[in-house]
């Protein structure tokens, strides 16, 4: 459709541009400006140049929270991809049992993060939790799921996987349904077995779906906050302080608006970089 006037597309886009300007661009620019100030919300802001960036680098806070976020993200993306695909393949069939399994797995996705947090607080309690009791029943030693600096970030990642796998499964199911059956049938006629068909036909055709699942899981793990707030409050010893939680702590716990803003700016750069890499990967796959 050709616009009747040159300005027409802008008019049509204006509500969204306005919303993006107010709720995205303005806060981002404001955070960028504030990142050069020392400000506690109470006394007048003081220009400090790059001191906030230097402070979060020198304290090791940036690297540790970025490292934790990336660790959780890698585990979440890998886990949700593998589990989501496996479950989708298992329940991609007609019948009541498969339908029930699909609904049961997806139900976790619609539970609120707060309920998930409280639920897993009990499940992973070191002394009275279901997991450690089950391990004790099997004669195995329990673990400090939430109070060990090594295990706590992995526990958080496991919980996120539990929550988002249902969504990954549904997306893979829609991807499987969209695959032309004749391709698989042709491979079968050529003598390809189920494993070979999965490996050489189904999985390559599901690559765009997998890329979508990876992106949504990555976003979910980068936005992680609620479950950390409820389960560990960033601890023990900052081992679950992901980037968003670090921003929250700087702003609301420590009254350091400038440092929180510096973290916001860095967070934005990291996300922009990841999005750029993802776009590049997508474009590289497109036929010339």
């Amino acid at each position, binding site marked *: 459709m050709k616009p009747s006037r040159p300005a027409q597309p802008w008019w049509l886009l204006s509500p969204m541009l306005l919303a993006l300007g107010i709720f995205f661009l*303005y*806060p981002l620019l*404001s955070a960028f400006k*504030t990142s050069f100030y020392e400000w*506690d*919300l*109470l*006394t007048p802001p003081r220009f400090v140049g790059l001191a906030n960036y230097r402070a979060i680098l020198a304290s090791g806070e940036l690297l540790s929270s970025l490292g934790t976020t990336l660790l959780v993200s890698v585990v979440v993306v890998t886990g949700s991809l593998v589990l989501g695909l496996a479950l989708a393949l298992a329940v991609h069939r007609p019948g009541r049992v498969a339908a029930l399994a699909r609904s049961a797995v997806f139900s976790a996705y619609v539970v609120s993060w707060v309920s998930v947090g409280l639920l897993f*607080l009990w499940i992973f*309690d*070191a*002394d*009275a939790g279901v997991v450690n009791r089950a391990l004790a029943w099997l004669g195995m030693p329990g673990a400090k799921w*939430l*109070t*060990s*600096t090594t295990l706590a970030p992995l526990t958080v990642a496991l919980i996120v996987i539990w929550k988002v796998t249902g969504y990954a499964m549904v997306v893979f199911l829609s991807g499987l349904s969209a695959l032309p059956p004749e391709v698989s049938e042709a491979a079968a006629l050529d003598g390809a077995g189920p494993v070979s068909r999965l490996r050489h036909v189904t999985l390559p055709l599901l690559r765009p779906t997998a890329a979508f699942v990876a992106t949504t899981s990555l976003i979910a793990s980068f936005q992680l906050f609620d479950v950390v707030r*409820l*389960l*560990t*409050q*960033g*601890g*023990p*010893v*900052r081992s679950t302080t992901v980037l968003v939680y670090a921003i929250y702590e700087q*702003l*609301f*716990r*420590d*009254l350091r608006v400038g440092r929180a803003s510096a973290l916001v700016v860095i967070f934005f750069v990291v996300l922009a970089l990841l999005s750029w890499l993802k776009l590049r990967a997508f474009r590289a796959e497109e036929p010339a």
Partner: protein
Amino acid sequence: MDRRAFLLASAALSGTAAGCDGRAEPAGRLAVPFWFTYGGRNRATLEKLVARFNAAQNEIWIQAVFQGDYFEGLAKLRTALAARAAPPLSHVVGEVVPYLAAAGVLEPLDEYPGAHELALEPRLDQAGSFHGGAERPLVVLPFNRSTPIAYVNARLFGDREPPRTWDELRQTARQLTRSGCFGFGCPIDWWYWAALVGQAGGRVVEPDGRVTLGGAAGVAAIAFWQSLVQRGVMKQPPGRDYNAWEQLSQDFLAERVAMIWSSTAFVRYLEETADFPVRALPLPHGVRGSVPTGGTHFVLLKSAPRELKQAAWRFVRFLLEPEPAAFWSSETGYLPVTLAAAARLEASGFYAKHPNYRVALAQLPVAEPWPWSKGLFRIQREVVQPRLEAALLEHRDPERVLAEARALAEESAL
């Protein structure tokens, strides 16, 4: 449009949300917002007192708005202050009072009618709560004040003697530990560490302002915790701040821990919820007896309109009258903050019937005031708290941990 305008818009939105709860003031009354951070039973008790005040006169209507826990409430209050949309009345933890006073956001109360005739418990008013508090303009009044105390499961504790020293505490914890139940539990929290520092003969900040974090006493406090954890007789609850406190209460109630350190504010809750008799005990002595005070102080916010501040002051005066103050204390477990309220509880036989409520009061003679240090809350939240966790969970050398904390704390105190 500057950041203030943006914050104002945010605060206006939250104010609108708060105003949607159907508690609009009756016609002709002056509505006075009061931001509070008491949950559960304590919240219900406060709301009873608010209703009583609102019913007792026809000029002022207190609108009590719940704002989460102490630290969430403080974060909201600061945002509202920045947006010049703060309520006239709220309450804040002691550690942040010097900072707020230095920022000039607290209303001086000296000139308010009767401000110096309230006959407050001397260990809990501004002068008693802070070193140097008497020499500064009056900016806070106590209401929900507390000290840490010990709670024991009387069924498991039996007729043992209460532990009076650290060694006896260690021994009792060992005796009470059995399969599925730790003998002792304590949140790895600044407040309890400060109690141990005092008991070991140190101070977090010296009266001259030097941040020593207790010196050798600070190290001894951490080492004491470490020894209890290493022997498997002390439970460290997961989580931080009040999440850890709440978790420990649940462990105590479920008989997974036989003896805990917690605030006197939980007396009523634990007594009513436990399936077993609960006994409160004073904290043991190290080289001396010492407990920090906790809870919060009332503050009037300078930025509020004058008539709202004056109306809020009338409400504060009402709460500090003997009957409401005694009611608040007896319904919650917080300390009675006026001498008249304490005398009323004593005379009515309340303490004779409920001795657990008297434990914190009896500890007040050894209560250690907080330093009037602007950086105190940062020392607490940023410097000490995370390092206590590191020392306990990563078995780090307490001396090195505190030396590192001291260097950072000196910076924060400036």
